[in-house]
């Protein structure tokens, strides 16, 4: 099947941020994402149970939109929250599905 390159942005962050991250996606015109509950460890210690858990959010979108979101995360969350994010290259079948809707 013909596939086209697209960018996958994965964010692991403390779950208290879920609603805000989703809002940021929507603001960027991105309608699709997947969330799995996660725990983990990082600079801000162990994260599960009473310490609060993480979510693992991933969204496939254009490189520009992913870069924009990464900028948003840096501006708002990197300094003060348990959060990591990374980009990777993926190939998808239905390109149009992953184009952000400009509003």
């Amino acid at each position, binding site marked *: 099947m013909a596939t086209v390159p697209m960018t996958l942005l994965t964010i692991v962050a*403390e779950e*208290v941020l879920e609603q805000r991250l989703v809002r940021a996606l929507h603001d960027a015109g991105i309608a699709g994402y997947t969330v799995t*509950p996660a*725990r983990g460890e990082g600079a*801000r*210690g*162990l994260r*599960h*149970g*009473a*310490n*609060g*858990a993480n979510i693992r959010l991933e969204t496939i979108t254009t490189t520009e939109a992913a870069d924009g979101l990464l900028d948003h995360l840096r501006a708002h*969350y990197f*300094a*003060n*929250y348990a959060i990591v994010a990374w980009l990777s290259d993926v190939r998808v079948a239905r390109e149009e599905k992953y184009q952000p809707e400009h509003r």
Partner: protein
Amino acid sequence: MLARARRRHPITFRSVHALDIFDLARVNLTSPAVLAFVLGALSVAIRSDLRLPEAVYQFLSIYLLFAVGLKGGVALSAASPGEVLGPAFAAIMLSAAIPLAAYPTVRLLGRLRIQDAASIAAHYGSVSVVTYTAAAAYLARIGEPVEAFLPALLALMEMPGIIVALVIAQWRLGTSSGLGEAVRETMTGRSVVLLGGGLIIGLLAGTDGVGPVRPLFVDLFAGVLVLFLLDLGISAAQRARDVLRGGRFLVAFGITAPLVFGTVGAFTGTLVGLSPGGATVLATLSASASYIAAPAAVRIALPEANPGLSLAAALAITFPFNLVVGIPVYHQVAQWLHRLPFLAG
């Protein structure tokens, strides 16, 4: 009878008293809930892989908050307004006042940053559902009667302290932006919705309406708490390193603060006419520090605060201290205050 006998023979009483404290601490120390907390902590020490699945931890906390709210609502629905008004007002005032004392203490003596001081103030201004329940169970076991409406006080003391602490931070940091948003996010947060929602449901449904759901929300409560405390013990032990980082001040504060706030709570409770048992509960609420609602609220409103510090103080120091030492002490204090003629007259 016993109380009257004591009042007449202060000397006898004192020796009984000394005996009591140990005996009562033993009662509290051998409750399955406290022992489960210890088991959880020990399991970390021996590097066990014991841990509740994340989804289960969240479910248990949802259950506990909702069940506490429900119980509070039913209690309110059965109480007469006149009887509740005084204690309710006192509870709200206590919760709001605690951060006003806690903030400068932490800031000046502990030399912590504004954000961290306010965060700790918010945790101690709010209350711990689990500590409350331990106090209630303790009083039940030793046969000390309490007012039926006390669960409602718990619900009332969840929020005011958090909001006052956030306002202090906003004021000291000179930022006015974001307070409204922070309060809004706190009020719509899971904890408040479950506790407040449960309260209103209990109030509307009343004793009869809640009847069919008692087996889940009332009968199972103590058991669920045991499982929850198992996991809390794990988290608390994992916080031990943060306690060390926080230094001696954090330990001192985590022990002194509940004693002071607890005494003030017992005093206020006695003043507004609560029974010795009721005053013990109000003392415990004042002395307890939140580790469910407050952390979530503070994460939103004061992201620069280090959540490790306040959680370590609340969960790893104050919580076990209250469980083992605090509650019996507040009870003794409340009994003692109750015998002061000018107070409990």
